[in-house]
């Protein structure tokens, strides 16, 4: 386990009352909704950012908004920190608990409440998975657009927490652009409704603010999302290039030409090999870099758009162009891409970066990333959303070697700073969590961060929600001690 990132010291008064708190929670909830045995807490000690782990005080798995409200009200009253958890797929430690915190898991809030094709909306409970929404509305000819790679497992509540993106947001936007309303429980247990089936809720855009707030402002229990009519057809095309630079330049030119494909995904050689090993999607193995460009629409439309893209790719010396021939093949191409992180587990442990850079900086940042990782004596695989400059270098290492683990983290930090210095940001879609928390000062001034923290305080004066996340521990309005 790594220890470079500190957690707040557990609140002594909370730790001292542990058994009373558990008894009280047991009074509030049905027995199957409370986990508190030491053994059973272990699986909740981390999410998909496994390098850091802390056992929670207890885990509650409420079945209703009212239960979420009751637990929050109680925790707020007694100053008990709370960590919201969806499916625990965060890559930045957004759902990692700590010893004095109660985890509020939303996995039991998993019902789709309403599908309204007239207004093109779906109302779902927060624990419904991202893909389940699209699956449910697919027979009616609709889909829910944001598609994080973990869409099979991740929940809409978690998506809202992290303002999740995905491959197809180049055209359709990220969560915040597709979210119409929420039912949210504030830290004091108050239940509020923001937005609904209509557009642009009145008043301040609190919906926009809570989207991507990483569980610090309240707990969303229901969400109304926008549905989009499925395109007539969609066709991913593989473009293989000799070098990453050529592929990067091609991306910039495609976007610059005024064509916006639905997705432009990039993979370098190591990533191609990893994904092909799992998905057997037919990615070309003899190229240095691969772009998956997806266009959609009618056959005529796709042909027209592809012709333009192929022409641009040829100018950049494209080596292989392969149009996918069937829906099965298309599914495999996306399966390979979306499983890239997990599939990396076949060859090594990894940490995944999420910096976003302006398109013009893509080639430069790619090159420097390789140099940085090499400088730390490690390997890197790159697979990311090139169309919007959202990079995901996967730094490969051996988690059982503490020295390698430390070097991987250090390399990751260097890469993220590089992204910020190139005019980008620390995280495009995974969130800050604990992973990038201590790098926040690299992107924001003291005044910027103080302002954000002040807004956070307006929601949660005691800073109970998702402790130790997002904001550097020193300089917070709350004055708790922290330790490495």
């Amino acid at each position, binding site marked *: *386990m790594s220890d470079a990132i500190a957690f707040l010291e557990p609140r002594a008064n909370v730790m001292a009352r542990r058994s009373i708190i558990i008894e009280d929670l047991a009074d509030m909830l049905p027995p*199957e909704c409370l*986990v508190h*045995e030491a*053994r*059973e807490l*272990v*699986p*909740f000690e*981390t*999410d*998909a950012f*496994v*390098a850091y782990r802390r056992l929670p005080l207890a885990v509650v*798995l409420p079945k209703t908004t009212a239960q979420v409200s009751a637990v929050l009200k109680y925790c707020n009253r007694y100053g008990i920190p709370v960590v919201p958890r969806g*499916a*625990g*797929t965060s890559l930045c430690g957004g759902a990692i608990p700590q010893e004095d915190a109660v985890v509020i*898991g939303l*996995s*039991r809030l*998993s019902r789709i409440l309403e599908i309204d094709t007239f207004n093109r909306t779906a109302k779902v409970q927060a*624990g419904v*998975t991202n*893909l389940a929404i699209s699956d449910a509305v697919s027979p009616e000819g609709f889909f829910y657009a944001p598609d994080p790679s*973990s869409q*099979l*497992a*991740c929940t809409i509540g978690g998506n809202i927490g992290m303002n999740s993106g995905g491959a197809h947001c180049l055209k359709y936007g990220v969560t915040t652009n597709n979210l119409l309303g929420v039912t949210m429980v504030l830290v004091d247990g108050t239940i509020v409704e923001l937005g609904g089936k209509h557009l642009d809720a009145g008043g301040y855009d609190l919906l926009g603010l809570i989207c991507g707030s990483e569980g610090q402002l309240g707990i969303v229990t229901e969400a109304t999302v926008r549905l989009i009519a499925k395109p007539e057809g969609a066709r991913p095309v593989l473009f293989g290039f000799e070098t990453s630079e050529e592929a990067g330049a091609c991306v910039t030119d495609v976007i610059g030409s005024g064509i916006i494909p639905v997705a432009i995904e990039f993979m370098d050689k190591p990533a191609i090999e990893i994904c092909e090993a*799992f998905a057997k999607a037919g990615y070309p193995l003899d190229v240095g870099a691969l772009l998956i460009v997806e266009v959609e629409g009618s056959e005529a439309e796709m042909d027209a758009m592809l012709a333009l893209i192929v022409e641009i790719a040829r100018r950049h010396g494209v080596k292989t162009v392969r149009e996918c021939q069937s829906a099965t093949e298309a599914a495999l191409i996306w399966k390979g891409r979306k*499983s*890239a*992180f*997990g*599939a*990396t*587990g*076949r060859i090594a*442990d*990894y940490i995944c970066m999420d910096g976003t850079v302006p398109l013009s900086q893509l080639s430069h940042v790619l090159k420097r990333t390789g140099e940085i990782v090499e400088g730390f004596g490690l390997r890197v695989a790159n697979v990311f959303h090139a169309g919007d400059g959202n990079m995901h270098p996967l730094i490969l290492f051996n*988690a*059982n070697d503490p020295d390698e*683990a430390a070097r991987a983290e250090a390399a990751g930090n260097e890469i993220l700073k590089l992204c910020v210095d190139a005019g980008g940001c620390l995280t495009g879609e995974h969130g800050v969590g604990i992973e990038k928390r201590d790098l926040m000062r690299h992107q924001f001034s003291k005044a910027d961060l103080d302002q954000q923290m002040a807004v956070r305080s307006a929601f949660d004066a005691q800073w109970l929600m998702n402790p130790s996340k997002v904001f550097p521990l020193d300089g917070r309005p709350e004055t708790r001690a922290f330790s490495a």
Partner: protein
Amino acid sequence: MQTNFTEAQLTDPHVAASEKILRRCVHCGFCTATCPTYVTLGNELDSPRGRIYLIKDMLENDRPADREVVTHIDRCLSCLACTTTCPSGVDYMHLIDHARAHIENTYQRPLMDRLIRGVLVAVLPHPQRFRLALSLARLARPLAPVLSRVTALKPLAAMLELAPQSLAPVAKAVTVPVEKPVRGRVAILAGCAQPVLDPGINAATERLLSRLGVEIVVPKGEGCCGALVHHMGREAAALDFARANVDAWTREIEAGGLDAILITASGCGTTIKDYGHMLRLDPAYAEKAARVSALAKDVTEYLALLDLPRLAPQNLTVAYHSACSMQHGQKITLQPKLLLKAAGFAVKDPAEGHLCCGSAGTYNILQPEISAELKARKVKNIEATRADLIATGNIGCITQIATVANMPILHTVELLDWAYGGPKPAKLSGVAKA
């Protein structure tokens, strides 16, 4: 994922193997989404990722199993949907096998649980005992509602409810002569529970293969594949069953040669294909077991190689239910459907096809509540296809789904036998028009 085992711990080959498996898991959580128990219960402890974590914690700390860990491991169906989903290639099957053996060796179950498991182990793998038990069960069936009110006795109630209303007569010998020229020579696993519950499946297989020019042998000494006891963590008993079968087939291989060992219950197939792994540490058997595993094939896998003629479309729609052992355990997804289509049936895939029907060996007896929820969900999805009948490749699923579905459910091979000249299956009387 990082692991914490000492050198000493890793000298145990089972621990070493599990450590390797754990190292592959990157804790991405994809597996939770396709896990039937997580989908049903909504608790990560009842998901593959949660169980992997529980097992890791138990093994790393050399701890005997305890009530909490056993509760969550027991709830696992071993459907292996997680292994289909897992991008990292975590070999969950062998990890949970190890955990189950560890539980059996280090944990004393409550008395009633032990008794029920004892009965299952003593009866199910032995066709004669099983036949007798089912006759008794029919008499005791009225007790089921009473039993189901007592938590500890729920498995007994479940057992009684699963027992078929009537039993088919003992299977008759093959009557169809083998067509010439002979295209192959195969052994068919007679098995244990299937010939008692539905002897028509192997009979159909034998008829079909004979007509196709395949010579069939049923070697002496062959019996239960061991899956039932294996999934209860009874490793030694499972290995004994495996050795007995390996011996029987090896004799046949060495005598007349075998092109394949055919299995008509995919639950058994998954285990027989794993004999090579199960017996890898037994020097006397490792090699022979590997040879048996390599020859083991699901009947549809073998039929797919025979290039059956394409028949005119029939006016019948089949909902194909892929057994977990078929799609996840053996990764056989296309062949059965292609065979059915070639035979003229229209084939539909029910929604949520990756989810288990809740049968899972003895799971529907030992975990009747979760099993019932999964069964209801499965049947709802199947019925939504508005098909005329259901086809599947595993006797466990047939028994489970037949208790509630209001359409007939048959083994794929029964439909193929019919389409390619065999008698119309009795279950289809009144339903089908060919």
